[in-house]
């Protein structure tokens, strides 16, 4: 039997607020993904996005770093304690300081010298957000960034758990954060993956994804607890760089590998948080995978509410899953009016006691990732 690892604390900061606000809004069917509304001045008005309505520049001039520190600071002010001694920082991220990097590169392309020369490359090297959060907390353990695109957050849990079990750190803080930037917004539009309407996960008329920004965290500690991380796994399609393999077997392999260490049968999975980007291809394949990997499980999909938060998505969604298990509530799939056949999503929150919950993500590179949580505490139904 492997040494147990539990989630001692967790939280998030999404376009719908902190964890209590985000979860309540999600269950009320609210969405922060909108055309118009709060947005950076460079973002086109006709592109739906979900922006965190908060100025985090006091924490860092890099918004991705600032969102992460703001989420942690809010939790610490509310009573969470994090011992920095031997604390590993495992940060999930895709864009680092790219938002300011874009400005520096634009200045260079226009024939000017970048106003902040380090922004051109150095400040958006991938490891920088882990350094920023590690320095802010005074963490003395290993610091590493996981950058496997949209599976980064889920993979980060596995990295952190293995570091803990191997004794490479005393405790591990998994953090995910990604801010809006031109690269991702215009990049997904260039790929033809961006919605022209709104993100509608698993809806029969879904037409694409919408990007949101968020930060989330989970503090992992060794030993048993009410909420344990029981497995994490990734598998690769080796099929296409951006499209999922049509049968979805890579994701099935990842889910089964995530529950295997505890000998859990697929029929015992009580809740699956789906990746569900709202693109026609992803959601169709994912529906097949979930039907095979967790045939009895109700399914939730949060991107209609928060948008696709990219490198942060795995952590955001693990945190929402954790809150869902703690409260015994499976959230609705916001903006899914008519679900594709075979997917057990609903338009209202449901009270479902959950012992085993799974969260999955898919990513560029043909990556599939899954994590499994076990709740053994008292369900705070209806809180």
């Amino acid at each position, binding site marked *: 039997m492997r040494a147990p690892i539990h989630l001692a604390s967790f939280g998030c900061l999404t376009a719908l607020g902190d964890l209590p606000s985000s979860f309540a809004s999600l269950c009320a069917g609210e969405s922060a993904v909108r055309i118009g509304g709060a947005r950076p001045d460079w973002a086109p008005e006709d592109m739906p996005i979900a922006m965190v309505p908060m100025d985090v520049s006091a924490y860092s001039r890099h918004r991705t770093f600032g969102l992460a520190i703001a989420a942690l600071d809010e939790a610490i002010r509310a009573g969470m304690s994090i011992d920095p001694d031997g604390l590993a920082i495992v940060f999930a991220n895709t864009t680092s300081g790219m938002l300011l990097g874009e400005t520096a590169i*634009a200045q260079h392309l226009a024939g000017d010298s970048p106003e902040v020369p380090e922004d051109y490359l150095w400040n958006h*090297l991938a490891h920088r957000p882990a350094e920023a959060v590690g320095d802010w907390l005074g963490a003395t353990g290993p*610091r590493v960034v996981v950058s496997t695109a949209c599976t980064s957050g889920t993979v980060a849990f596995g990295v952190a758990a*293995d570091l803990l079990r*191997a004794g490479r750190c005393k405790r591990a803080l998994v953090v995910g954060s990604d801010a809006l930037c031109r690269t991702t917004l215009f990049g997904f539009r260039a790929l033809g993956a961006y919605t022209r309407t709104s993100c509608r996960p698993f809806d029969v008329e879904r037409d694409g994804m919408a990007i949101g920004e968020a930060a989330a965290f989970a503090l992992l500690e060794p030993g048993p607890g009410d909420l344990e991380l029981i497995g994490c796994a990734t*598998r690769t399609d080796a099929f296409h760089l951006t499209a999922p393999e049509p049968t979805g077997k890579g994701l099935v392999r990842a889910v089964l590998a995530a529950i295997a260490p505890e000998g859990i049968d697929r029929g015992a999975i009580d809740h699956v948080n789906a990746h569900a980007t709202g693109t026609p291809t992803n959601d169709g394949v994912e529906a097949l995978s979930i039907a095979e990997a967790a045939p009895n499980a109700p399914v939730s999909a949060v991107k209609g509410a928060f948008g696709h938060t990219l490198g942060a998505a795995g952590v955001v969604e693990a945190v929402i899953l954790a809150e869902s298990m703690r409260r015994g509530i499976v959230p609705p799939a916001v903006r899914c009016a008519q679900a594709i056949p075979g997917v057990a999503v609903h338009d209202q929150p449901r009270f479902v006691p959950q012992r085993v919950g799974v969260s999955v993500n898919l990513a560029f*590179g043909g990556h599939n990732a899954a994590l499994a949580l076990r709740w053994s505490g008292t369900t705070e139904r209806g809180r």
Partner: protein
Amino acid sequence: MKVSVLAAGSLAMPAGGQDIPRPTRVEAGGWRRFSRLARLGACALSPVLESAPDACRSADVDFDRDELALFFGTGIGEFLSSYSFLKSLFTKGPAMASPLAFQNSVHNAAPGHLSMAFGLRGPSETLCAGPLTVLRTFERAMVHVVAHEQAAIVLLADDLGADSELGWRLAGVDAPLAEGAAAFLIAPARSGSPVLSLVEARGDEALRSPLWPGEVDGARTIGCAEGLYSTAEAHLLAQAFARSEGLRIGFRGERTALDLQALP
């Protein structure tokens, strides 16, 4: 923590921007879509995977492309692809922004391309830790190998182009720059093969990255592959493996070291 090194391969190019030879295992069509980082990675990985079945058989460990884990470490990542995408966006407008450059701009694009080229369907992780990338990627992979008692691939790569060289200079780095990749097939430690150990370095034994030669503080400097950023250490480890030599490399700001020893 110790693992065996069953095979290694590396490529170091003294200047960026040169043609990278396509391994015969990689089809020309796929090669055209590869980022520069993926091409460097392919050159280091290809010989390792060619020798992997025999090496695993000799070491009595399974070689299964459905389960073989790939741990990819990169300090710089896909800067060149990101730059290329932004150049298309800023000079041609959003309608002409390059989807190919965008899909290659994620840091795990290289292992994605390589998984298709070499049929790798197992776990895949991309890790970035700046100058400690080699250390952290090996640490991660070694933990996995020990915990799962399986073989795994460690691949380190960092590239260089005129656009990224400018970035380094703007950041005040005046050291020589280069690019390269290194790949290792590692497995649970067993006698008869070189052992890679993660050790706590003591004092001057901790050597430091050649990117900061001024910070070596009298320790023995590493005499080649300067400017490969974090990949330099991996290249040196691969060379040490090929020569059956022992090598200890410390990391900037830490007391942890990687130690490759060819044991009888």
